[in-house]
């Protein structure tokens, strides 16, 4: 796919690497001359130096008809302007913006940006999860923190080892969506049993997370 990346610093660098490794075609627009030079030397992609918010800079980038525009500038309003311009003038259908304020996510969607990601909020949430929950449990917040996916390692001492799914009472707010046994991935049904050394993927709401982890692991995790 043809992707344009506007603005950003460290985020841009890693993103570009990942996208290039998947084989996408990239154009980068950035207003920091030194950074542009660095990018140009590190990756072999067209780099345009200039303020991505300006029309004449975008013109020179030649992004008409691209598939995706990713806006990574620090200011939410700038990213909105970039995405909307990309959509209306350069006919780029999918626009992705990084926003600082989590409340802007909803607003961006209503104003026509395909996806808005509140990076700081997600990172904070993830750090909080990783710091306060013990090592046998990994958690990731999704959908702006409305759902949490938990990765739980089952050992012999867990109360659920050797039990069937239908015997467990997880309640309304949680579900075991996947069991990883060795190298096999099992989508569990009611009669599926859980064995020691299984890895369970459990979807739950943040409120029921502690209770569910307690039920499965045998002890409340903080």
């Amino acid at each position, binding site marked *: 796919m043809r992707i344009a990346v506007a603005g950003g610093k460290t985020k841009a660098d890693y993103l570009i690497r990942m996208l290039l490794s998947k084989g996408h075609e990239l154009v980068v627009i950035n207003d920091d001359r030194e950074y542009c030079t660095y990018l140009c030397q590190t990756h072999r992609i067209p780099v345009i130096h200039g303020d991505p918010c300006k029309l004449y800079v975008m013109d020179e980038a030649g992004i008409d008809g691209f598939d995706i525009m990713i806006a990574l500038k620090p200011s939410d*309003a700038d990213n909105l302007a970039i995405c909307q311009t990309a959509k209306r003038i350069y006919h780029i259908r999918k626009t992705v913006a990084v926003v600082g304020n989590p409340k802007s996510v909803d607003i961006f969607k209503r104003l026509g940006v395909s996806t808005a990601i509140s990076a700081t909020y997600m990172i904070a949430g993830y750090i909080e999860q990783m710091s306060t929950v013990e090592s046998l449990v990994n958690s990731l917040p999704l959908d702006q923190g409305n759902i949490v996916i938990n990765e739980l390692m089952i050992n012999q001492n867990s109360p659920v080892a050797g039990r069937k799914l239908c015997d467990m009472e997880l309640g309304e707010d949680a579900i075991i969506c996947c069991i990883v046994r060795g190298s096999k991935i099992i989508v569990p049904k009611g009669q599926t049993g859980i064995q020691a050394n299984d890895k369970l993927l459990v979807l739950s709401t943040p409120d029921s997370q502690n209770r569910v982890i307690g039920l499965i692991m045998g002890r409340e995790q903080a």
Partner: protein
Amino acid sequence: MWNRKKTIIIAGCSRFGAGLAGELSEHGDDVIIIDKDNDAFRKLPPNFSGFQIVGNVTDPDLLEDAGIGNASVVVAATDDDNINCMLAQMARRIYDVGEVFARLNDTDKEHLIGGLNIKAIYPARLSIEKFKELSSIAF
């Protein structure tokens, strides 16, 4: 007689914002002015009798506390065109404010607010018009 006065939210205490706030306040309207920097309010004239709020003008919580739901007019008067566009669009599409004005330095930004009935004010263009009016050069 009763309520022909309007509630006006001005975002950005620039010279334009401050001056406008002063005149509207004197005219008897309810004026609420927002700026991210407390010192900017020093530009307000002494006859200003409305509310001053410090904060980010594109923060929806701040706008709701300021009463954007009841506002009849919103003026985006910050020095940053992109912020003005974002606020103008929020005011129109999300909060359905009656009259929305945006001060824009760059005429190229026109397409961002097109189709939404946002009234744009281009200081550069107005200055050029004034120049043509005052000068003796035949255009």
